[in-house]
C-alpha cells in the first residue's frame, strides 16, 4: 500500500507499484485533468507538482511518490472561481486547444510560487519544457505575467 497526498487529501494506492503516476492519477484517482502527450518526458502535458516541484508524471512510478504530496490542475480554481493564474490565461489567450494547458499551468504555478520572476525571459525559460503547438507561446507568457502582476496589486 502506497500512501500519498493528492491535492491536499491523504490517499492510498494498492495497485502495481510501478504504475506510472499519470495513470494512477487518471485511472485510480479519476483526476483526468493531467494529460498525456508523448509518454516519454518530452512534451510536459503531464506536468504535476511533486512536493512543489514540477515533474513529468509519465516518467514517475507511483512507488516513488510514497509519503509525498502531489498537486494537479484540479487543485487550482474551479470554472466558476478561476485562480488568478487561470484567469490570466483566459484573459490573455493562453489556452487554445487546451491539451497542453494543465501542464503549462502547473509549471507556471510552480515558477511563480517559488518566487520566479514574471518577465518575458524568466517565464519563457520556466515553461521551456512544456510544448504547445497552438499558441506560439507569446500569449501564454503574457498570461503568466498578467497573473503575477495581478497578484502583486
Amino acid at each position: 500500500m502506497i500512501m500519498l497526498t493528492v491535492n491536499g487529501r491523504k490517499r492510498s494506492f494498492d495497485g502495481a507499484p510501478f504504475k506510472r503516476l499519470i495513470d494512477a492519477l487518471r485511472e485510480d484517482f479519476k483526476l483526468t485533468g493531467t494529460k498525456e502527450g508523448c509518454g516519454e518526458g518530452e512534451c510536459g502535458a503531464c506536468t504535476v507538482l511533486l512536493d512543489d516541484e514540477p515533474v513529468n508524471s509519465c516518467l514517475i512510478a507511483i512507488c516513488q511518490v510514497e509519503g509525498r504530496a502531489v498537486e494537479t490542475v484540479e487543485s487550482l480554481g474551479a470554472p466558476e472561481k478561476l485562480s488568478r493564474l487561470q484567469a490570466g490565461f483566459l484573459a490573455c489567450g493562453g489556452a487554445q486547444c487546451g491539451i497542453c494547458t494543465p501542464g503549462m499551468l502547473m509549471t507556471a504555478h510552480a515558477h511563480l510560487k517559488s518566487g520566479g520572476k514574471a518577465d518575458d525571459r524568466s517565464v519563457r525559460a520556466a515553461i521551456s519544457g512544456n510544448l504547445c503547438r497552438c499558441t506560439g507561446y507569446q500569449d501564454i507568457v503574457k498570461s503568466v505575467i498578467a497573473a503575477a502582476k495581478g497578484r502583486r496589486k
Partner: protein
Amino acid sequence: MSVGKNEPRRDGPAKLTGRALYLDDLDIPGCWHGATVRSSVPHGRIKSIGFEPGFPWDECVVVTAQDIPGKNVVALIEPDQPLLADGIVRHREEAVVLVAHADRATAYEAAKRVKIEYEPLPPVFDMERSDKTFKSFLIQRGDLDAGFAAADVVVEGEYRTPSQEQAYIENNAVAAYEENGVLIVTGSLQCPYYVLKALKHIFNRDESGIRVVQTVTGGGFGGKEEYPSMIAGHAALLALKAGRPVKIVYDRHEDMAATTKRHPSIVRHRTGLTKDGRLVAQDIEVVMDGGAYATLSAVVLSRGTLHAAGAYECPNVRVRSKVVMTHTPPNGAFRGFGAPQTLFAVELHWEKIAAALGIDSLTLRRRNIFKLGSTTATGQRLLESVGASECLEKTVKRSKYASKRREYDRWNKNKANPSWRGIGLAVCHHGAGFTGSGEVYLASRAGVALTRNGELIVLAASTEIGQGTNTMFAQVAADALGAPAAWFSVETPDTHKVPDSGPTVASRTCMVVGGLVSRAARELKRAFQTEYGRVPKTAADLKKAAAALCAGAPARRFEVQYEKPPEVAWDDAAYRGDAYGVYSYAAITVDLEIDKLTYETRVRRVTTAQDIGKAINPLLAEGQIIGGSTQGLGWALLEEPIFKDGVMVNSQLTNYVIPTSLDAPPFDVILVEKPYSRGPFGAKGVGELPMDVPGPAVAAAVLHATGRLIPTLPHTPERIAEALK
C-alpha cells in the same frame, strides 16, 4: 456589439481547470482498448497472418479485412484506400489486423504477437520516379512564348520543401459503441460528416444508424481532417465484434509514423521580367508526393496550384502541377493545404530575381503586387478587399526593414562578430473557403435553434479544435440578431443534432460557416419582428418571445444553405475564373541571427501584418496568427521528418523537434481589416494564412545573413553549414 471584442473563449474555464473531457478522459463503462497491427514492409503481398501460440487469444477480439460488413474502403474522394489491407500493402504502417482487450497493455502486447508474412514487392520512394499520377492541373493565362520573347531577363529556380508533422499535442483517439441499434462513434476529430460518410460505406448503414460526435479536441491543424475516419472504422469494427465499447488511443510514435503529414514538394520556376522588374512570364511546375493513396491529395494540389504564381499580376502564366503516388504513408491536410509549398517557391524566387536584375526584392514586389482591379493567373479580377500592399507597407515600416538591412550588412562585414544577421521578407495571399466550385458542391447548411424555454443554440458541424470557433459563432450570431452573445450557446458537433456545415478546413469556418450562422440569426430576427413585434431585449422578454415563436413545439430551427455569390464564376474544366470568393493577405519580416560556430539560427523578432477582412475576436485572431506562424517557423528551421525505407524514423517528440518557448520569437502582429462584402461583418479566412509566410522569409533572411540562397527547407544548422562549405 460583440464582434470586434475580445470575448473570453467559451471553452476556456473547462480547459483551464482540467474539466474539459478529451476522448481518453471519458469514463465509458466496460470499454476495451483497441490496438493496430501495421505493415512492416512498404510494398508487398500478404502471405499469411499468424497468431503466436501461448497467448490468451480467447480473451481478445481480433478483426481483419474479412470482418468488414460493407466496402473495405475509407471513402473520401477516390475509393482507393482500404480500411484494412487485404492482399497487398502499399506503405509501411498500413493497418492490417486489429485487436482489442479489456486491458490496454495486453491489447498492445497482443498486437505484437500477430505475425504477418509478406512477399516483398518493389517500392517507389522518389516522387520524380513515380509512374502513377493521382491528379494533375494546368493553369494558362495569356501567351507564354510572347511573354518570354518580351522579357529582358529570364530567371530559373528550383525549390524543395519537406514533409511536416502536425504534432498536435493530443494524439488521435476515437471510441465506438452500439446503443439501441445505433453505432455511436466519438472522438478527437475535425470533420464529423467525413467520418459519417466513411462509416456508411464500411457498415452499409444510413445516417440514422450511425451517429458521430466530436469530443473536445486537442489540436488538429489538418491532421484530424481525414485520418479519424480510418480510426473510427477500426474502433467500430472492434466494438461491433466485441459487443462492447472499444476505444483506440494512439501513442505518439504510432500517431507520427502512421498518420498523414504535409506533402513534400518540388517547385520549378522560369520567370521572365523586363529590366525594370515587371513580370511578363511565369512558367511554373509543381510536383507533390501524395504517398500511397489518393486521400485529399487532389484538393491539396489544387490549392497549391492556385497559389503557385503568388500575389502578383503577370499577363502570361502557365502552371503545370501533379501529385504522384509513392509507397509512403499517405500525405494529407496540414494548415495551408499545399499553398505553403508553392508560396515558398514563388516568394524565395524573388531573391533570385533580385540578384539577377540588381533590384531589391521589396521594390520588385511593390512593382508587381496585387492591387484592386488586378487579374490573377486564373483570370480572376480582384474587385474588393485587396490588402496585399497595405500589409507589405505596414510590415516593412513597423519592422524597420530597410534600415535593418543596412545595419545587418554592416554587422556582417565585421569578421569579429560572433554571428551573421539577416532580415527577410515575404508576402502571400490565401484563398478563403473551398477551391473553385467546392463550396457549391458542399452546399453547407448551418442554423440557429430557439427552444421554447428561450435558449438560443448555434447549429453547425464545424468543430472547435482550439481556434475559438464556438466563441466566434456566438459573437456573429449575437450581432446578427442584435442580442447579447451570452444568450447563445453552440451545439456539440453531433451528426444527429447539427446540419452538415462542411469540414473544418480551408480557412472556411469563419467566412463561409460564420456567414451561414449570421444569415440564420437574421432569419430568426425577422421571425421575432414579424411574429412577436420586436427582437426581445431582456431574458424574460426572450422567454415570452420564444413561447410565441415555438407555438407549443419544443424548438424551432432556422437553417440556411450556402448560396454562391452571383458574381463568382468558376470553370472547373478549364481551371479558369474566380478560384476563391476572396483572398486574405499577409506580409512578414523575419529578423534572425546565425551563430558562426554552431550554425544555429535564433529568430530575434517577427513582424507581420495580416489582412483578414475583419477580426471577429482580435485576441483569437492574433492567437491564430502567432500560433500558425510559429508552426511555419518550425517548418522553416527545425522540423524534418526523416524517412528510411518509406517510414518516418524520427517519430517521437524527442527527435522530431517542434518550437519551444525559447525557440519562438516575440511577434509584433498588425491586423489589417479590408472588409469583404460577402463575409460576416467583413471577415475573410484567418486559419492558414499565417503558415504561408514564415518559410520564404526565413530563407530570405538566411540569404541576407550568409549570402547563400538555400532553396530547400528546413534551414537546419547542418544544411546551413553545408551551404557555407
